[in-house]
């Protein structure tokens, strides 16, 4: 297989009209990067999400400079949720390794654990919301509160989106009607997405702790 890692800048300096380049170009197989379409899709989604969260972080940093900002005190429950999310990511990684080694029976159980833990995380986040609401810390009280609700909600929505694909993979696996290389890839992509959301959560949680 040919190398496909030529840099973008090298690619756009080719001279397609020259005979020597034409010989190379006629060998071209039509792919720019050596990754699968699905993987590139997940990566693109992660880039777009990164832009969204970055803009929120920038807005957060801008808004907190104004005098009416009153920081929230993070409840201990958020730490538990963080631990749950870390655990989910670790187990998802293990699931991926299991699938790679064709241990599909174990993979099934492992995927279920991942799903359970993820739901636990979301429930935990909702409990944190309830905790704040009980304290009277509504979104309109203070911009710090508003950002807390928005960022956790957005992160939660991303996780729910991930769970949709998790559910698809899991049902495929349990119906025993799948293409082995495809299911491996799907599990891998879900795992990547979960790691991504863990990193996003570290950044958001870190930001809220630090301010």
């Amino acid at each position: 297989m040919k190398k496909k890692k030529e840099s973008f800048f090298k690619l756009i300096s080719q001279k397609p009209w020259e005979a020597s380049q034409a010989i190379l170009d006629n060998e071209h197989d039509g792919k720019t990067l050596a990754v699968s379409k699905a993987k590139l899709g997940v990566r693109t989604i992660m880039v777009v999400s990164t832009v969204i969260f970055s803009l929120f972080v920038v807005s957060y940093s801008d808004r907190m400079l104004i005098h009416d900002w009153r920081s929230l005190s993070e409840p201990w429950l958020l730490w538990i949720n963080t631990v749950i999310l870390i655990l989910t990511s670790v187990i998802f990684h293990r699931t991926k390794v299991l699938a790679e080694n064709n241990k599909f029976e174990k993979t099934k159980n492992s995927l279920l654990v991942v799903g359970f833990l993820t739901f636990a995380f979301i429930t935990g986040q909702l409990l944190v919301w309830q905790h704040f609401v009980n304290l009277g810390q509504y979104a309109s009280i203070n911009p710090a509160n508003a950002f807390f609700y928005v960022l956790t909600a957005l992160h939660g929505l991303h996780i729910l989106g991930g769970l949709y694909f998790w559910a698809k993979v899991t049902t495929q696996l349990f119906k025993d009607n799948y293409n082995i290389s495809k299911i491996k890839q799907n599990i891998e992509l879900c795992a990547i997405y979960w790691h991504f959301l863990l990193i996003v959560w570290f950044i958001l949680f870190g930001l809220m702790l630090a301010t």
Partner: protein
Amino acid sequence: MDEEYNNKIETKAADSSSGSYVPPADNIPASEIPEQELYHAKSFWTRWVFSQDAKVIGVQYALTATAVGLIGLVLSWGMRLQLGFPETFSFLGPATYYQSVTMHGMIMVVYLLTALFLGGFGNYLIPLMVGARDMVFPYLNMVSFWMFLVAVLVLISSFFVPGGPTGAGWTLYPPQAILPGTPGSEMGIVLMLVSLSLFVIGFTMGGLNYVITVLQARTRGMTLMRMPLTIWGIFTATVLALLAFPALLVACIMMTLDNLLGTSFFMPEIFTMGEQLGTTGGSPILFQHLFWFFGHPEVYIVALPAFGIVSDLISVHARKNIFGYRMMVWAIVIIGALSFVVWAHHMYVSGMNPYFGFFFATTTLIIAVPTAIKVYNWVLTLWRGNIHLTIPMLFSLGFIVTFVNGGITGLFLGNVIIDIPLSDTYFVVAHFHMVMGIAPLMVIFGAIYHWFPLISGRHLNQTLGKIHFWISFIGAYAIYFPMHYLGFIGVPRRYYEMYDSPYMTSGVGLNQFITVAALIVGFTQILFLYNIAHSAFYGEKSEKNPWKANSLEWHTPEMPPVHGNFGKELPVVYRWPYDFSVPGIDREYIPQHISPSEVPTAKVEKT
């Protein structure tokens, strides 16, 4: 690069230097990408309504965008009637006027131009031009269109809610956008924000398809630098959109919460009627930054596909290889990159640090360099070309002139010191309508006349087309040239009425003239729509490849292309799409899939 290739180049070079060039045997690379599993529609509904075929989705996008664009057109008539003949029409109160301004702007920029270029042309042309059977994620592509349709319906529904649509101006600046007193501050603004959010989510799904299809699903032999410039334009614009629309989404989410939950992301402390509202400390400038971080790339999201398409139209209809293809690609990429560092030139009067303005003025003026390169290249492509004055060519020429016009006023507005007196006057209105209204529309019209035979198998009526071109072209200048003058004498934009203001002593007649011109141009577009509807069924049948173009979309086994685009075998590409009038052979053009052995005597064209 491995040994084998180097050897090949050397042998090749030796061959050509000895003067007796023997064409190499055609080398068909092995298909490393397995053929795509193609979704097959089983019923009328899945074939034409919930279709996963990019061509059908493209047409759906285009029709929806045109329908909502017509609403935008009618709204502009409302505005013009009020400005040209104030106190004449009782149905045009201040609220209706502001609602028309707002909805006209948002509809035209986002729901018409963006959707038509990327959703319409992107969907139809990308798979055909890169030699793919369909987009890489057809299901997602279908969802993308339906999200767009829902976004449009939500937007339209705001006309029917209490208070009507928002009248905050298309920039939706807080705090006024959500304060009582602005028309539509009850439901209209919420529906607008929800609609925009849906549009962004739907677009992201489509954009994912466009980018990955271009990157990973091209046919064999189609390198990035053999792609038609149309694809380069749409591809780069999609990348911009994927990175810029999140800013709009973020702004929309925060403003929705400010409105519904009473948070103060953007809402400062406000006293109204002697009472303090509940908000504190929010920053309206933050919204402006977010909005324009989306808003400026948006200009290029509309312009880059236009640049790409017009390059192809000029090349095909002047029977000449595009001048400086590589430079054209680089210009598209550089403009795309620069478009992310110029946004604050929309905010020179927002009270920002002067050095900040200095920075943004510099970056803004730098964009003129790649843009000027493109204009020179178009002109040089025409130079000594075999120019066919077909309707697409007329529109392309119209585009070049209009774009230069709008671009040059942009140079003035890009300088802080000139922008400050001209800011929020009709000079700005004239500038952006020329550069991102009329210019891209010229390309859209040209592209429709060019590709209509491909889509429907029939030609549009030529006479109607010529009438359409000349009235639209001359009419556009009749509308927007006088606006520059109005701006110079200081007429502010967005004002409902100027009453007896001394600004308007010389502007009254001009405003009436503009209004009449706008009405005429508007009605001509209805002629154009009639032409499309009529020709789609009764038009003159087109032969295959009527413009003798090289790119793959014209070389499908059937025209219009059927499901799956290409027959049993995907075409293999051996050249770029600009081999027109190549010396050394008896054919006038060489399509992309013609192998070297079929045209052994073709010489390399100097570019």
